[in-house]
């Protein structure tokens, strides 16, 4: 820098005003929140409800039934107050397992499901050493009636053959 040279400092630097910056910040945050909300909602899926807007996942906890497998016949009795629409049967053997739905693979499973106090019995042969009965419930969603398979670990009924 040469001696006697003047340094010019600009006083008027025009940027965004604080109000516009704040509004922009809020709008961006809202847009991002909406995008994340829609993304997560798509991942979670539609809520299936039953009995006055109760999520069907909670209703699974109220399902009660007794079951046994004797003499080649599978017996199931709905001893609770929740109708059981279907029943998945998981046949477990060492190294592999297969699952079928009594609605499709049984001739006597009621079309409207196993209502309160109803009993189901039918002859089946299983290849595995144990079976797990997993209740299927019918609920309402925004897209109409939908079935929900209860969580096997929480609500599965294990029978040793």
């Amino acid at each position: 820098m040469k001696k006697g040279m003047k340094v010019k400092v600009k006083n008027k630097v025009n940027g965004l005003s604080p109000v516009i910056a704040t509004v922009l910040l809020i709008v961006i945050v809202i847009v991002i929140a909406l995008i994340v909300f829609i993304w997560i909602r798509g991942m979670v899926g539609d809520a299936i409800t039953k009995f006055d807007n109760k999520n069907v996942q909670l209703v699974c906890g109220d399902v009660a039934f007794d079951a046994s497998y004797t003499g080649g016949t599978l017996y199931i009795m709905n001893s609770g107050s929740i109708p059981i629409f279907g029943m998945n049967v998981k046949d477990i053997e060492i190294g592999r397992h297969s699952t079928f739905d009594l609605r499709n693979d049984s001739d006597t499973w009621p079309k409207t499901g196993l209502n309160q106090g109803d009993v189901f019995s039918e002859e089946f042969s299983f290849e595995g050493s144990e079976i797990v009965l997993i209740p299927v419930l019918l609920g309402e969603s925004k897209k109409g009636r939908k079935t929900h398979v209860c969580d096997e670990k929480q609500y599965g009924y294990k029978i040793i053959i």
Partner: protein
Amino acid sequence: MIKEEKDMYTPVKSKKAVSVIIGYVLLVSFGIVIGVIVYQWMKTYVPQDDLNCPDGVSMFIESYDCSPNSLNITFKNNGKFDIGGYFIYATNSSEQTLATIDLSARNTNTGSRFGNTSVILIGMIDSATLNDFGANKEETDKYNTTGLGTIYSVEVLPIRWQTEKNRVILVSCKDAKIKETIEC
């Protein structure tokens, strides 16, 4: 030069940003709006009351009497609450652990308070009237067992009519279920 430097570092008082109050109002508003959205989204997961019988519901088989083609059973309500009926199932095999033969339709007792269904059919609005099998009352029903063979056991599941949110609902009393081994 000195004056210019002074201008650079002096805070400008005239520039106004969003006031603190407006900031707080916006923050609280957003909090409320987000709370409402999340509640609407997750409200189906809020636990509600279960459809359960009261703890004091209880009944038992006081006596039974077998004849070749019929089975007479006397039930007694030994609980604290009135009962609206029961589901009754029998086994005709000693190996069968779960009773599946429905005896309800085989009730031939014309004077039975349950008719031939073992459940008082819903026809009234008041659930207190529907639960007609009151505490300490007895009920004897006669079941036609023709064609069933030997009856080994009987399972009885009491039920109650309960009013939930202005609706009369049939509730199974799974905790009061009884199983009786009989010899017929």
